[in-house]
């Protein structure tokens, strides 16, 4: 069985500084993968390469659903299949919540306004903000905005969802509501790659946890193995630093 996301020898540099040192990774359809690691370890860069928000070296290969992630027409096809949720939400501030969710299906999939709206309302219901549909993003709390961002990504019916530290910009009391929405998504068949600092969430939801450091995948495995029985010293010291205090 071929994986849904194939990453082979992924290398990326900012000038002299190499951020990713040839990463190999396969992610199966429907799998929920949490990527953890210290800041600067390259975990955000890794997932931003999957939909090519970051360019990468020419001899590196990423394929989503068998489509190579290279600049050009194919890239639009990949991006339509791969949803992304950002740390800073990045909602469109000049549109209502409803329009935010409707825009991409209308423009990219050429959905009729009526259909896009019906679907947007269903999705907003699903993330628990149907009453806020006609408000503007600035009038919503951070947690609500991030849930709208998830609905906006879901509106394209993506096969893959990328989460780039989705709760890091939130006030602590709002983290739970966003994680709850993500938990409900896990197991619905959508492949999820989540960069997170929420270790409890990763342990509970992930099929596989990937620990990165210094631009390399140090260790990967089921959450129980990574959290309870890490093999690598670097994983142990990281987990020690984030968990035991």
């Amino acid at each position, binding site marked *: 069985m071929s994986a849904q996301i194939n990453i082979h020898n992924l290398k990326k540099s900012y000038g002299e500084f190499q951020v990713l040192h040839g990463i190999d990774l396969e992610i199966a359809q429907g799998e929920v993968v949490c990527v953890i690691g210290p800041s600067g370890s390259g975990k955000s860069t890794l997932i931003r390469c999957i939909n090519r928000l970051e360019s990468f070296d020419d001899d590196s290969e990423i394929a989503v659903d068998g489509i190579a992630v290279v600049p050009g027409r194919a890239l639009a096809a990949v*991006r339509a299949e791969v949803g992304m949720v950002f740390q800073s939400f990045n909602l469109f501030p000049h549109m209502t919540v409803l329009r935010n969710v409707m825009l991409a299906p209308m423009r990219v999939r050429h959905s009729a306004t009526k259909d896009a709206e019906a679907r947007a309302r269903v999705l907003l219901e699903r993330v628990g903000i149907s009453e806020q549909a006609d408000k503007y993003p600035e009038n919503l709390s951070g947690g609500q905005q991030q849930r709208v961002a998830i609905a906006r990504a879901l509106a394209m019916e993506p096969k893959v969802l990328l989460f780039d530290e989705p709760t890091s910009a939130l006030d602590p009391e709002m983290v739970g509501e966003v994680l709850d929405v993500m938990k409900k998504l896990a197991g619905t068949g959508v492949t999820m790659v989540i960069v997170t600092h929420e270790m409890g969430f990763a342990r509970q939801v992930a099929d596989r946890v990937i620990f990165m450091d210094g631009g390399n995948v140090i260790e990967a495995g089921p959450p129980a193995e990574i959290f309870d029985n890490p093999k690598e010293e670097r994983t142990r010291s990281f987990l020690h630093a984030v968990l035991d205090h």
Partner: protein
Amino acid sequence: MPTVNTPFTVGAYFFGGVMDLFSTFFNMPVLMNSLPQLLSGLLVTVQIGITSIICGLIGGLFLAITRLYAPVIVQVLVRGYIDIFRSIPLLVLLIVVYYALPFVGIRLSPFFSAVTALTLVSAAYTAEIFRAGIEAIPYGQFEASAALGLSNRHTMVDVILPQAIRIVIPPLTNNCINVMKDTALASVVAMPDLLKQATQAQALSANPTPLIGAALIYLILLWPMVYVVARLEKRYSRGR
């Protein structure tokens, strides 16, 4: 022998002076006579102004987007254009367009000479305004659009420009005021605009009242726009 300035004589001089002032600068019969001429000039001024403003806005938006996203060679050319037309005095450009271009076979009417010169310069300024507006949009908006699979065109039209235009409305309005004011330069290429009509009426009546009338009409035309800009600036500096 020095004159003794009693309060009475001072008052008489002053009164006489004021009367002279009025009959010279605010001569009602002269003004009434020249009013139709001034108003036809106003119409021409407004026509030149609005045509140049619209062409300048379209040209400026095009230049801004080319300068930001076109291939590097084109970007360099656009940048050169913008710098040149922001540097050249409008009066010089206008005279070049009207008096020099005929030597290479390009003959533009006074109206099109004025509109061309004003548009070329206004587009350069407008391009810089739009560019600043587009660059002020957070990068996350571009990324979110890209991640959703929106094309470059939809990213611009649906996401970036609606936000950028909001930011640049005050400076754009300011630029419109400048274009309106600069239409007065068209009078040097024999365009019967407001200023030209006023100077002609002044020559005809041997009285400067039509000029004062024209100045007042410019004020009445532009003061509200200045007021609107101030309001817009206040509103947009507070946020939405």
